[in-house]
């Protein structure tokens, strides 16, 4: 038995284009533990959506193995698909059907009672518009309907690819709260997102990929690290830099950022040198800085 819900080993995906072979995912080893919300981060074109599409059987892997709930996929995907809800890229429904009709067809295809359709629609706040045609929905409403579709199965694993795209701030907060609640209720959520602050707020663990390769993975706190920097300001910055360097502190090259967990030592060293601080602000590392640091070499832009 394994406590990993998602597991990939040496996963690779190549696309044949006119200009040759393009590698979208290159030897990816992904491990998502059961429970909690796991962030899946990477710049555009880094292979996030391709990885998700391979996990869900929409795309074939060129090499490597994948497991969901310990079952090899895509071969055993039918045995676990009822436990997985997913929104991949933009929501895709029949535009001429109403939201309710779209959900009803999906529910019937897996033998879910249609009463659950009403419950899912209510959960995402679409009850008033569920009989309107899907094509009349705003992007945010389409996104909510896609999330409602994932809830039809009452999934153990929720895979969400940019779920807050197109939502207004209130909608983003609602979805974020829903994701957090689902994670806390025991559902494993794989959240692919560009909004790093969002990931940091809701995710317990994260994987960062770039150019189809894994760059970092682990608990969000571990990825960010515990070390804290302090921004220092005084009338003579050069004197501050000299004094602190002489006192053995590490000072950032372009900014007066001092890495330490004892800010009192900074004030003491500068006070002894007759320098009086005008600012001493703790600057804690965040996921964005970690992300940018790790993906600095990756090309930004482009599709997946």
């Amino acid at each position: 038995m394994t406590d990993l819900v998602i597991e990939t080993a040496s996963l690779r995906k190549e696309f044949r284009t006119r200009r040759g072979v393009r590698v979208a995912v290159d030897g990816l080893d992904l491990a998502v533990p059961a429970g909690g919300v796991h962030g899946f981060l990477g710049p555009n074109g880094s292979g996030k959506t391709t990885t998700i599409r391979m996990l869900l059987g929409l795309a074939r892997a060129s090499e490597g193995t994948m497991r969901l709930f310990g079952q090899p996929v895509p071969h055993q995907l039918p045995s676990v698909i009822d436990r997985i809800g997913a929104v991949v890229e933009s929501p895709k429904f029949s535009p001429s059907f109403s939201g309710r009709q779209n959900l009803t067809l999906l529910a019937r295809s897996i033998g879910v009672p249609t009463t659950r359709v009403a419950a899912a629609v209510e959960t995402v706040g679409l009850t008033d518009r569920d009989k309107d045609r899907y094509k009349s929905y705003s992007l945010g409403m389409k996104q909510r309907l896609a999330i409602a579709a994932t809830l039809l199965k009452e999934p153990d694993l929720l895979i969400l690819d940019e779920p807050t795209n197109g939502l207004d701030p209130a909608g983003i907060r609602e979805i974020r709260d829903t994701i957090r609640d689902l994670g806390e209720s025991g559902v494993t959520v794989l959240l692919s997102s560009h909004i790093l602050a969002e990931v940091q707020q809701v995710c317990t663990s994260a994987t960062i990929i770039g150019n189809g390769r894994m760059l970092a993975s682990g608990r969000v706190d571990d990825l960010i690290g515990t070390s804290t920097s302090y921004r220092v300001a005084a009338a003579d910055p050069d004197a501050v830099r000299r004094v602190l360097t002489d006192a053995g502190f590490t000072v950032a090259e372009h900014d007066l950022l001092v890495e330490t967990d004892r800010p009192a030592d900074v004030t003491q060293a500068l006070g002894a040198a007759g320098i009086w601080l005008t600012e001493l602000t703790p600057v804690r590392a965040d996921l964005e800085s970690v992300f940018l640091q790790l993906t600095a070499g990756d090309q930004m832009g482009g599709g997946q």
Partner: protein
Amino acid sequence: MLRLVRVELTRLRWRRAVMLLLIAAVVIPAVVAAVTLWNTRQVSDAEIAGVARDNASEIARCEKKPHRYGLEDADGCQAQIVGWYVGRQPLSLQEQRHENTGLGVATILAALLLLVGTTFVGHDWNTGSMSNQLLFEPRRGRIWAAKAIVVTGVSAVLGAIVFSAYWLALWAVADSRGLPASHAELLDCLQLGWRGAAFAACAALGGYAMTMLFRSTVATLGVLLAVALAGGIVIAALGIGERWQPQVNLSAVVENGATYYVDPPQSCFNGAPPEGVDCSGERHLDLAPAAGYWGIALVLVGAVSVVSFRRRDVP
């Protein structure tokens, strides 16, 4: 599987474009039947009197010189002249059958149901909802089969009902007009209709399979148009016989055999034709080889479509 079939049946029923095509598949044969009945309506006494009045001078000329009108005497002049101007034949199932009305209706129905097959699934590809369906049922073979069963089944049932109604209506009207219409003739026409329905259902399946292959209604229709326009020309240019022309094989399926023509062998033009050589140039194509022609084409398209759908990435 039954659950998926039911879902696809609902999806088909809810799709407006499909419903419009199915309605057209009922209305167009009904209009053809109505026009046929109108064009073969009995000539009334008032109509005869009106035509006779309008053509009185010609009737008079005929009565003066009946031999110029191919008549022995003047008695038949009025009937002949009126017959020319009224120009209507009484309703005859046999004649309708031989005048290819049934083949025409079968062709129209096949075209409409082919559009049903392409539109039904082309919409899934166009909107991307196919991938959503696969997130709920990842067994692609089942998805392909469920949709195919629904498209073919609905087309077959609708075709059978439309054709049966078409020929039964003609038969009933002929009977009510006191015209000869035997049960054997009716059965012959019904069988023609059912073969037409079977062909139309296969056309729907073919359209569906091609769209699952090309993933676009427009692409499928483009390929079919190209085949329709260039296929016959290519077959003729390659010197392949008329036996392989699609329309000859369509006629043979619907009408239980068809006649086509070939160039007689050169030996037929050198004096007396050799023994055992058919110099008439006329050949007969039976139902079985024509059904095989279409069957092989359908199986090939279907097999490529299934393999492609199972293997290719879904957008």
